[in-house]
């Protein structure tokens, strides 16, 4: 179970940073008024419906709008769900997720079917939407109350992350949490995913980050690593919609877990060659080279393996980018120091970091004051790092 499922709020007070929205939502549910919850992803739209249902003893009937393809389908489904009073007579909340993803010609009439259905509903209906101003749900919008979910403040997110690690008994530094929280851009779910990935990389816990594309990447990795014929995997990367950079990180992270010895050397050589083509694409904007990148990353890696091993390997997401980001923040002070010195001693700050700071540290550590215009904090930093 991912941490996001494990720590999905059961109580209203566990939802962070959405007090106003929750009051409004509660009101709608009590009065059986349809509501559209909208706002960025990972801010608690679905979670707050869950929490309210749980706390007030409602059954939750969840419908994913993208599952319901057309009016006919919708009619049947909605009428059933909305009209049936359950015999055990527990109240229900109908939750229709991603209502704005009703798409294209097929859905024509889908929205109006929902409108007529909710009119007759005995139960409160709640919609979530990323963009409530989508024209195809206009009719729905006028009948419902719009409730906005805002990006969650990073301090709230940080508190949540802290709570999770505390209850799992994992050690951490506040710094890391703050960084993850800041980086999430108000997306609690994203932050929890990052936290999960990071902790598994730092402490060698098992666990895989829950990403949108995870499953696709997983399957492609499995195909690339396990296929017997290189031709079979040719083009699978191009034909999927996964981000190439992201796939690259996954491949790099997991390659040495799957390949050994000569196979590993050969496979890395393919990655390295692919990277050269990638560099050339960036430099010259000559995108046809992508064919070679693709072939080397898929068929190239497949062909590098002498003997295929069966058996499941649990793949991990590469934590490199995140680590880099966190380190950069930690190194901000060092950067400041180097920049200051650079001006004074006629060097670039990069060179100062590499060539002068190591010596300066020793001088500072030996308690010799050195007059290069550093603040107390900066001297302390050199002393400690």
């Amino acid at each position, binding site marked *: 179970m991912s941490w996001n499922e494990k720590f999905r709020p059961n109580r209203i007070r566990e939802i962070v940073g959405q007090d106003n929205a929750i009051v409004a939502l509660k009101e709608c549910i009590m009065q059986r008024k349809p509501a559209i919850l909208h706002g960025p992803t990972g801010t608690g739209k679905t979670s707050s419906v869950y929490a309210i249902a749980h706390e007030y003893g409602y059954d939750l009937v969840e419908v994913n709008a993208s599952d319901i393809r057309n009016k006919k389908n919708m009619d049947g489904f909605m009428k059933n769900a909305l009209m049936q009073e359950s015999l055990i007579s527990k109240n229900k909340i109908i939750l229709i997720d991603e209502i704005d993803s009703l798409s294209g010609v097929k859905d024509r009439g889908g929205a109006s079917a929902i409108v007529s259905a909710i009119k007759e509903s005995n139960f409160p209906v709640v919609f979530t939407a990323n963009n409530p101003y989508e024209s195809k749900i206009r009719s729905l919008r006028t009948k419902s109350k719009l409730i906005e979910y805002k990006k969650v403040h990073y301090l709230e997110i940080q508190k949540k992350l802290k709570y999770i690690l505390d209850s799992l008994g994992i050690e951490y530094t506040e710094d890391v949490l703050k960084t993850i929280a800041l980086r999430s851009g108000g997306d609690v779910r994203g932050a929890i995913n990052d936290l999960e990935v990071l902790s598994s990389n730092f402490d060698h816990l098992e666990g895989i980050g829950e990403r949108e594309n995870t499953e696709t990447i997983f399957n492609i990795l499995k195909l690339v690593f396990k296929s017997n014929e290189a031709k079979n995997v040719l083009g699978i990367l191009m034909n999927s919609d996964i981000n190439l950079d992201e796939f*690259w990180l996954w491949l*790099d992270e997991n390659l*040495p*877990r799957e390949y050994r*010895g000569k196979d*590993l*050397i050969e496979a*890395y*050589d393919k*990655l*390295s*060659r692919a*990277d*050269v083509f*990638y*560099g*050339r694409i*960036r430099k010259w904007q000559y995108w046809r080279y992508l064919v070679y990148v693709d072939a080397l990353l898929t068929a190239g890696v497949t062909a590098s393996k002498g003997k295929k091993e069966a058996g499941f390997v649990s793949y991990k997401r590469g934590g*490199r980018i995140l*680590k*880099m980001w966190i*380190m950069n923040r930690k*190194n901000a002070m*060092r950067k400041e120091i180097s*920049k200051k*010195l*650079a001006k*004074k*001693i*006629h*060097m*670039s*700050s*990069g*060179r100062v*970091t*590499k*060539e*002068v700071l*190591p*010596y*300066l540290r*020793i*001088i500072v550590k*030996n308690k*010799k*004051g*050195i*007059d*290069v215009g550093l603040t107390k904090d900066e001297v302390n930093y050199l002393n400690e790092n």
Partner: protein
Amino acid sequence: MEIWIEKYRPSTFAEIRGQKNIVERIEAMTTQKSMPHLMFAGPSGVGKSTIALVIARTLFGEKWRENFLELNASDDRGIDIVRNTIKNFARLKSISNVPFKIIFLDECDSLTKDAQQALRRTMENFTKSTRFILSCNFSSKLIEPIKSRCAVFRFTALEENDVKEIVEHIAKNEKLKISDGTIKALFDISDGDCRKVENALQSCASISNKITPELIYDMVAAVNPIEIKNILEIAIKGDFVRARDLLFDVRLKRGLNGLDIIKQIQKEIWNLKLDDKKKIRLIDKCGEIEFRLVEGSDEHIQLETLLVNFIE
């Protein structure tokens, strides 16, 4: 206490050690208050920036700061920033009896080809009112049109005698006791780089005023930890995942780029317990990877590809 690389930076031509021919020729130019654009090429810590600063002091005297603009191409990124700063500086006429102002652009070899083209245009536009001094490690990284607009001076690493004079001067001033062999040790570790000599000397002096060869070598060991060697040994033993994760952490912690790492690996290969055939194969691989590093886009992938070849 001041940092010695600044405190002992020469401020006149006479104080400069090494680069005799270059100093002579440039001093002659400054006496005539006339010079072309200059290019200084050579390793670091051999006097390129110093000579540029001395030129400014000699030409402009007290007012040298107003007439001398120092930019570092690898810090002041973006040719647009460089161009605007240069434009603003060059627009005002020189406030001295010298008919031009000086722009010193350090680490020019970090400019992209496009940026170099832009720089070339800028040089042309302001030739009347300014002189450029460009400094770089490798002149081969600069495009021909720029080189042909400059008088190129090739700087060489300091010789043991230069190091001796520098160290003795500092020792006298700072009341250090220099024991036998120390100068040779300093020369040894410095690769003829004056900055390394002075930094090592100052950090040793912060421990004791008796400077011995042992102290120097210990200092260098403390400053350049043997992390890379450890990582290579872990890879040789076959724990590749750990080796590459450590390598990544070291890079982040020390702010080293791919090239820095390859240089260190190259040196360490000779200290490893491997047969000579394998060592040579690895050196060859270093070269290949260095080439790919320049062409490619993700340095870490390239370093891993190198590292994987160490597995026995």
